[in-house]
């Protein structure tokens, strides 16, 4: 329900301004892929896809590795760490909230027990 405004958090978001590049990251999140496979999936020329992958590689969102004649792309550590850091911050927010909720719930429970005792008397 509550977000605390939008932040200008990361320069790599420029690399993410393109729908194809976001799609590539999404696909690599599921499995590594070669540039040829990516080009085919996104209906693009090999050269076009190489350019997109190059942009992502530059900001550390993707890494590539050439084995034989095939260049394989996978998510870069930065992407993984960034997502992990986001999730952890979000978890911390909820954890803080829920610690406070815990106290209120305990209080309500005690109150209910006390009320029940009073009624029985």
């Amino acid at each position, binding site marked *: 329900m*509550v*977000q*605390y405004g939008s932040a200008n*958090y990361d320069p790599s978001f420029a690399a993410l301004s393109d729908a194809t590049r976001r799609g590539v990251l999404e696909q690599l999140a599921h499995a590594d892929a070669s540039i040829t496979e990516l080009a085919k999936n996104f209906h693009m020329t090999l050269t076009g896809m190489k350019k997109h992958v190059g942009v992502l590689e530059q900001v550390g969102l993707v890494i590539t590795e050439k084995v034989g004649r095939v260049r394989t792309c996978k998510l870069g550590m930065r992407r993984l760490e960034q997502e992990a*850091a986001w*999730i952890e911050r979000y978890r911390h927010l*909820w954890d803080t909230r*829920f610690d406070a*909720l815990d106290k209120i719930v305990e209080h*309500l429970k005690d109150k209910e027990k006390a009320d029940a005792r009073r009624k029985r008397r």
Partner: protein
Amino acid sequence: MPEGKEGSPTAMNRTAVERKSDRELVVTRTFNAPAHIVFEAWSKPELFQRWWVPKSAGLSLLSCDMDARSGGAYRLVFRHPTSGEPMAFFGTYREVTPHKRLVWTNEESDQGAVTTVTFQENAGKTLVTLHELYPTQAALEEALAGSAEGLPEQFAQLDELLAGRS
């Protein structure tokens, strides 16, 4: 990420987050009380406002109106010390099933999530599952990145992490 499985003592009081899909986030936690008590703390404004805003966020809550009935509206108004203008967060309860389920929309923008909270009671404890569905992947990521902005200690950690990378 989840260290203890359900039922073990470490799972109790642990908040777990899962990114279920590009557009969905799921938060779970078990509370040591029956569902009707936990539900009360989510549906009564005088209780809700005591836990929803973390103290470390530095926000002050100016008002909290919640009409927790199907079709009812909610509106929370905050002030952050760094911005002069109060911020309002508002939306509609799509579904309110006492002690079981709450569904609300977030209507500050068209990028707001639909939040579903379920309460499952088992042996006097209640598993709360909060599910957020965003309209787009970008909206989810924006929310994730901005969600803890008010928690400075966490932000500092992220800055350090990203600084080490670039």
